[in-house]
């Protein structure tokens, strides 16, 4: 009995130490998902005959992703960095598995995972300037040099470019999410560093879902039929406006942004999410796959879920650094 009492006591103190807005935000996400689960449970009875298995899987996976990310954010920067290093690894492995085509590049694939470890090592060590230049400059030069040493020149340029694209999107860009956790408590943040990350993830995923829902409900005019046949102008614009409103009204709860900075983030982030989505769609179409894997039931691969985040994360990070943070 005492043990249970101890445990709840610890849990209570642990939660009490967290910023209030962060807890409220996480509770809000849980409520939203609860409503979605309830709708998904009732739908088959209201409109029988259709299959709702995909929707059910999607929502179950959302619960899993929310539990993982919320747990990491509550535990702090170490856990968040470890989780994002793992997400980067899964995304990079998916990307390299689909995109690399020369068997001579096996050592370069191994080196790419090494670069991932080093990049996240800079986040752990809190070395921002090292991180900034490591992949865009040193890996950009070093990996192709290694590939030249391997000696296969046929398809060399395309392969070197493939590696760089994969490392920048899957590692460098996603790493900025983890680096946001290193903003020190001395900066006046309304919901702590975890609040910054929480709001980036919320806005990005909300934008994905909002574009999807607007498209499903009102979509008529196709926006990019040759790249992403299911995307429509109605989905894009509806998602843009809804997400911009979310950022404008809820942003100040989690971020130190206000005025012009907040307006710019609200205006640009939804478009960046859309751009990340269609860019990855173009790559998948080029390769000839619909999903990058089946790692997340109902969603596809990790890269299918994180495609918009690879664009929104660096954008959000740099706008935040420009308008509100002293650390970066």
């Amino acid at each position, binding site marked *: 009995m005492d043990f249970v009492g101890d445990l709840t006591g610890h849990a209570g103190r642990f939660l009490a130490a967290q910023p209030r807005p962060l807890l409220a935000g996480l509770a809000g996400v849980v409520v939203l998902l609860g409503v979605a689960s309830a709708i998904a449970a009732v739908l088959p009875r209201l409109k029988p005959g259709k299959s709702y298995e995909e929707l059910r899987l999607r929502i179950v996976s959302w619960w899993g992703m929310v539990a993982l990310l919320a747990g990491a954010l509550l535990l702090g920067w170490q856990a968040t960095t470890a989780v994002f290093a793992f997400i980067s690894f899964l995304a990079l492995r998916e990307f390299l598995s689909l995109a690399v085509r020369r068997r001579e590049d096996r050592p370069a694939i191994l080196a790419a995972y090494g670069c991932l470890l080093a990049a996240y090592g800079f986040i752990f060590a809190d070395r921002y300037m090292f991180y900034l230049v490591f992949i865009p400059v040193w890996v950009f030069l070093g990996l192709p040099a290694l590939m030249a040493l391997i000696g296969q020149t046929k398809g060399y340029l*395309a392969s070197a470019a493939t590696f760089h694209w994969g490392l920048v999107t899957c590692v460098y860009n996603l790493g900025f999410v983890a680096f946001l956790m290193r903003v020190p408590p001395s900066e006046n943040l309304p919901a702590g560093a975890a609040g910054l990350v929480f709001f980036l993830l919320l806005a990005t995923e909300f934008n994905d879902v909002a574009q999807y829902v607007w498209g499903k409900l009102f979509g008529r005019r196709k926006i990019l039929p040759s790249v992403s046949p299911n995307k429509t102008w109605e989905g894009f614009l509806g998602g843009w406006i809804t997400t911009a409103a979310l950022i404008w009204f809820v942003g100040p709860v989690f971020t130190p942004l206000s005025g012009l900075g907040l307006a710019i983030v609200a205006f640009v982030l939804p478009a960046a999410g859309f751009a990340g989505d269609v860019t990855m769609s173009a790559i998948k179409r080029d390769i000839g796959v619909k999903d990058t894997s*089946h790692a997340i039931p109902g969603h596809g691969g990790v890269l299918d879920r994180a495609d918009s985040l690879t664009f929104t994360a660096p954008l959000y990070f740099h706008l935040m650094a420009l308008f509100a943070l002293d650390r970066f």
Partner: protein
Amino acid sequence: MRLLRFLLLVLVARPLALFMTGADVSGRERLPLKGPAIIAANHASHVDTLLMLSIFPSRAVSKLRPAAAADYFLRDPVIGWFSRHVIGIVPVARSKAGRRAASGESEDVLAPARAALAAGEIVLVFPEGTRGDGASDAMGQLKGGVARLAEAFPDAPVIPVWIQGAGRVLPKGASVPVPLNCAVLVGEPVAWTGRRGPFMDALREAMLALKEQAPPLRWSDEP
């Protein structure tokens, strides 16, 4: 020993396989959970065996016995012990099989596999007999041993499996594995039709049909 094997498979082999390959399985519900049953898969890498041992639910993994060449896996005592007790192989004497074909004499090289099936275990066979070269993902000639097992156990389901990409993680001749996603596609059982020829044709068709559904493997010597 059984417990050690179970723990090694679940606590070491499974996380290792997930890390190296992602183990992207489709048709998992078609995996047989009790024997006698036969699984026939293509073979490009040692990773194939690791992967198959890792995708079975814990309650069935103890029953899975990969058929493996005795000349290769039992050649020295350490590897032999590991092969028998951890991987749980049923040995197939390839060299004897060759001699038997040459001399027309009949020593039963499949006896251990048959005994495993009789004991209600699940036997994993690679009908190509050896690993392909991994450069192309073409399937080699299928050997007929699997048909003889099916003939001996006509009610045991024969499940075709296509493993895509294992030859990139650890190709034949390479010593350092590289993490890359592998897809495992599990098909519907192939029924024993009473004759070996048509059965082998049906099995081959089934495996190639699974290969068609696999994600593209854009991996070649000539880009």
